[in-house]
C-alpha cells in the first residue's frame, strides 16, 4: 500500500471514528475547522521548511509526485507538492489532529477533567482586562463547573 492510499484511508478512518465511533462530530463544528486552519497554516510552514531543505525524503513509488530527475530539491508546488511537502503529508496531519482532538472531546464529555473549561483570554478578565468587573463576571460560569470529575 502506498503512502497516498494509506493517507486517504486514515482521513476516512479518522472522520468515521469522529462521527460514528466516538460520536464527537467535530467535523460538523465551526470551532474544529477554525482550529484546523491554524494547524494547517503551521504545518505548511514547519513541514514546508523540513521538506524544502530535504530533511524528509519520499520514495517516488510511495507518493503521487515524482522527484526531479536531476536529484535536485522538490518543487514548491506541482508534482503533488504543497509548499514543498507531498499532499499526502496533509492527509496524515489532518487525521492525526482530528483523532487527537476528537479523543480530547470524547474524554471530556465522559467527565474526565471536563472542567475547568478554556477561557476567557487574559485580556478579557484579570490583570490585563480593560473592564475588570463585568468581563470577569460574565466569563466566570464557563470556568466554574462540576469540578474535577476525573477518575
Amino acid at each position: 500500500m502506498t503512502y497516498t492510499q494509506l493517507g486517504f484511508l486514515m482521513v476516512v478512518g479518522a472522520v468515521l471514528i469522529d462521527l460514528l465511533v466516538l460520536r464527537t462530530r467535530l467535523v460538523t463544528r465551526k470551532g474544529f475547522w477554525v482550529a484546523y486552519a491554524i494547524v494547517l497554516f503551521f504545518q505548511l510552514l514547519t513541514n514546508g521548511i523540513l521538506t524544502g531543505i530535504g530533511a524528509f525524503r519520499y520514495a517516488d513509488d510511495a507518493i503521487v509526485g515524482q522527484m526531479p530527475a536531476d536529484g535536485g530539491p522538490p518543487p514548491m508546488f506541482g508534482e503533488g507538492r504543497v509548499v514543498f511537502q507531498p499532499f499526502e503529508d496533509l492527509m496524515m496531519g489532518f487525521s492525526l489532529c482530528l483523532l487527537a482532538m476528537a479523543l480530547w472531546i470524547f474524554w471530556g464529555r465522559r467527565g474526565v477533567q471536563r472542567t475547568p473549561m478554556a477561557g476567557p483570554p487574559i485580556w478579557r478578565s484579570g490583570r490585563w482586562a480593560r473592564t475588570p468587573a463585568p468581563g470577569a463576571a460574565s466569563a466566570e460560569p464557563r470556568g466554574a463547573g462540576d469540578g474535577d470529575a476525573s477518575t
Partner: protein
Amino acid sequence: MGRFTYFAVLAFIFVGSAWLEIALRTRVFRRWKRLLLALAVPFMVFVAWDVWALATGHWSIDPERTVGLDLFGVIPIEEIVFFIVVPTASILSLEAVRSVRGWPLGDEEITP
C-alpha cells in the same frame, strides 16, 4: 542548525502553541490526565505507521538533520517527540478557539 534542525522546528511548534495555555487560558496542560488519554491512541497508531514506513522506505529522514538517537533502530527520537508535540498543539488550538469565540465543541455536558 545541522543536527538540531528537526528539534528546533519541534521547539518552535511547542513554544508557538504552549503560550496559549497562559494567554488564552486553554487549560490543556492543567488537564493533563485528559490530555494523556487523548494522545495515547493516536501516538501508538502513528508511531507504528512511522516505524513501518521508515522500514519500508516510504520516506526517510536525513540523519544529518537529527541528533542521531534512533529508537528500534529506525525511528529518530524527534519523530517520537513529534507525535506528542503536534497533537498537543492541535488540542491547544482547539481550546484557544473556544476561549476566544466560545463556540460549542460537544463537551459542554457530561454524556457517558
